[in-house]
Every structure is written in structure tokens, then in C-alpha cells.
């Protein structure tokens, strides 16, 4: 029985690998965007995401919570202390014994060090701080860790990515591994590499997190989306970052 199971697992693994993207075939969502959208991302004075980065810079130095501390009081100059940090998230949190993403890390810091209320998901403040921190890693390759403690979450993420769900009975992989570059109605299907989050989506007319994007996709296939911050969404984020390992961070990116 055990042997049968391992054969079955190996077969699944082979099947999954067959549909995987080859590293050299990977392309950022930037490459699928129109020249106008790319120009908007390339010019920091035209990129609306920079409005949030600017707000984040202000918040970084602003004291908050009962401890009356600012991010800068512990971390100092973000340009040096936060360089490369976003490229490593989601990362394993030793106290929680599970991976957490950058937004959750910021809120943990608020709760533990600043003794402040957590910022709401997709609030302007949380997006601004996340964008400001991630901006410090712009141009650096994605480098999520390969720790054994993260294995469970990574495997869950991989499984969710390949699992069909919703009334349309589609998996992430069917669109983003097998049919990228083709069109879904008016839009080109990208490969789903989370290189530029939080990013400015013209459709949203706002900055948004990777969690928001994932929930959008789930609603799109008419599945019940996971809650913000659910272990399933963080696992998916982790899997996607691992899948995009080595690709440069573009935060704040601009997408249609």
C-alpha cells in the first residue's frame, strides 16, 4: 500500500514537472503589458505606485502605538536595513512556526514592538509601508529561502496551484503554465510571477497586494476565495515566489 502510494506520488510529481515552466522561458508580467503601461512603470514621476512609496517613507519615520516607536527607531535607514528583505518573503516565523508574508511581518512588528493596532489588509497605510519596504529591493533577484521548515507550506502552495477549483473547474496552472501568452477575452494571460507587488493595477485604480490579486483570480474561476492572510494564500505566495526565484523585483509595478 505504502509502495503504491509512493509510486502514485512519483507519477504526480512527473506530471507536475511536465507542465512546469522552464527557468529560461519565464517572463515577467511587464513583458505582456502594453508599451504605454510599461512607460508608466519605468518613469518614477509617472508611476502612481510612487505615491504609496512616498507615503510609506513618511510612515516609516512616524511614531505609532503605546511604545511610541517608529519603524526607523529600530531599523534605521530603510535604504540599507530593508535592502533585499522583500525578495526573501514570505519567510518562516520562528514564533508562529509558519511562513508569513511582508504585510503580516509589518503587522507583527506593529503588535510586538510598537504595541499598535494592526493595519487592515489593503488599507492605504499597510500598502504604503509594504510598497516602501519592497521598493528597497527593486532590481534585486527574488531569493525566498529553501528552509526545510517551509517545505509543508511550499508543497501546499504547489498543490493549490495545480488543483482545479471553482465552478469553472480551473487550476492556476492551466492558465499560467499551459496557456500563458494567449488571450482570455481582451487580456493576455501572464505567467503569474509576483515580481512587482504591491503593484498599481489600472483596473483597480489603486495599489493592491498579491493577496488581493490571488483572491481576484479565485473569484474569477468562481471559487470561494481564502481569507486575507489565510495559510493557503500565504502558501500560494510562497510557491509563486519560489517559482519566480531569480527574477528581479519591480515594486511598484504597473499592470493593466
Amino acid at each position: 500500500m505504502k509502495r503504491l502510494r509512493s509510486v502514485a506520488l512519483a507519477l504526480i510529481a512527473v506530471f507536475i514537472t511536465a507542465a512546469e515552466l522552464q527557468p529560461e522561458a519565464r517572463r515577467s508580467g511587464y513583458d505582456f503589458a502594453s508599451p504605454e503601461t510599461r512607460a508608466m512603470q519605468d518613469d518614477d514621476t509617472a508611476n502612481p505606485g510612487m505615491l504609496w512609496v512616498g507615503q510609506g517613507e513618511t510612515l516609516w519615520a512616524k511614531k505609532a502605538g503605546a511604545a511610541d516607536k517608529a519603524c526607523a527607531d529600530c531599523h534605521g535607514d530603510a535604504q540599507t536595513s530593508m535592502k533585499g528583505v522583500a525578495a526573501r518573503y514570505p519567510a518562516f516565523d520562528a514564533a508562529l512556526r509558519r511562513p508569513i508574508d511582508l504585510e503580516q511581518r509589518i503587522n507583527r512588528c506593529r503588535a510586538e514592538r510598537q504595541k499598535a493596532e494592526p493595519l487592515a489588509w489593503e488599507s492605504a497605510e499597510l500598502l504604503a509601508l509594504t510598497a516602501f519596504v519592497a521598493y528597497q529591493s527593486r532590481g534585486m533577484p527574488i531569493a525566498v529561502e529553501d528552509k526545510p521548515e517551509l517545505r509543508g507550506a511550499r508543497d501546499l502552495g504547489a498543490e493549490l496551484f495545480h488543483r482545479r477549483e471553482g465552478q469553472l473547474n480551473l487550476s492556476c496552472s492551466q492558465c499560467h503554465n499551459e496557456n500563458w501568452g494567449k488571450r482570455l477575452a481582451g487580456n493576455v494571460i501572464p505567467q503569474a510571477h509576483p515580481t512587482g507587488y504591491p503593484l498599481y493595477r489600472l483596473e483597480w485604480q489603486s495599489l493592491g497586494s498579491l493577496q488581493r490579486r490571488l483572491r481576484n483570480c479565485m473569484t474569477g474561476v468562481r471559487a470561494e476565495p481564502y481569507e486575507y492572510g489565510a495559510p493557503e494564500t500565504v502558501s500560494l505566495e510562497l510557491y509563486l515566489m519560489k517559482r519566480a526565484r531569480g527574477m528581479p523585483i519591480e515594486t511598484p509595478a504597473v499592470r493593466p
Partner: protein
Amino acid sequence: MARVLINLPARAKRGQVIEIKTLIAHPMETGYRLDGKGAAIRRDIIKRFVCTYNGEEIFQAELFPAIAANPFIAFCTVATESGELVFSWTDDPGQTQTETRHIAVE
């Protein structure tokens, strides 16, 4: 206070054509949308944008509900003399945001 990004050269040669780019955070609520309970969301857009150069108006724009959130406005002018450029955006509730930038002309 809304967040603003303004880009113009800090210095320019007399007679040089310079490009000025402005971006302001604003919801540009059209007034045509309904909220979760079916009630109309009140219109809130930036109606007018004006730029003056040493007190003289060099550019103005009227904005309408079809313009997306966080409007980006870019225009050109001729650098005539050193001084101040004042940018102001006025929205439906009547609030005006004003920003000043300096330019040195040689």
C-alpha cells in the same frame, strides 16, 4: 493633504523648453456609482488644475468624471526666469491643494 509627485528640472537655460509632470492621489469618484446598499456615491473629482509661473498662469485644465483616479498631468513651458511655480488642484468639496517648486534659470 493629498500625496503629490511633481517633477520639473531644478535648473534650466533661459529660453529652454522644459517638461513638467504632476501626479496627485485622488479617488476621482464619478458620481455614477452605487455603494453596497444601492445608494449613490457622491461625486468627488478634481475639477480644476492651474499652474502659475512667477504669478502668471501658464497652464490650466478642466477635469471631468471620465478621468481615472490619481490624475497625471504633464505639460511644457519655456524657462524664462528664476522663480516659483505654483500648482493647485481644486476638487468638488471645494478644497484646494497647493504646492510650490523653485526653478533656477541661467
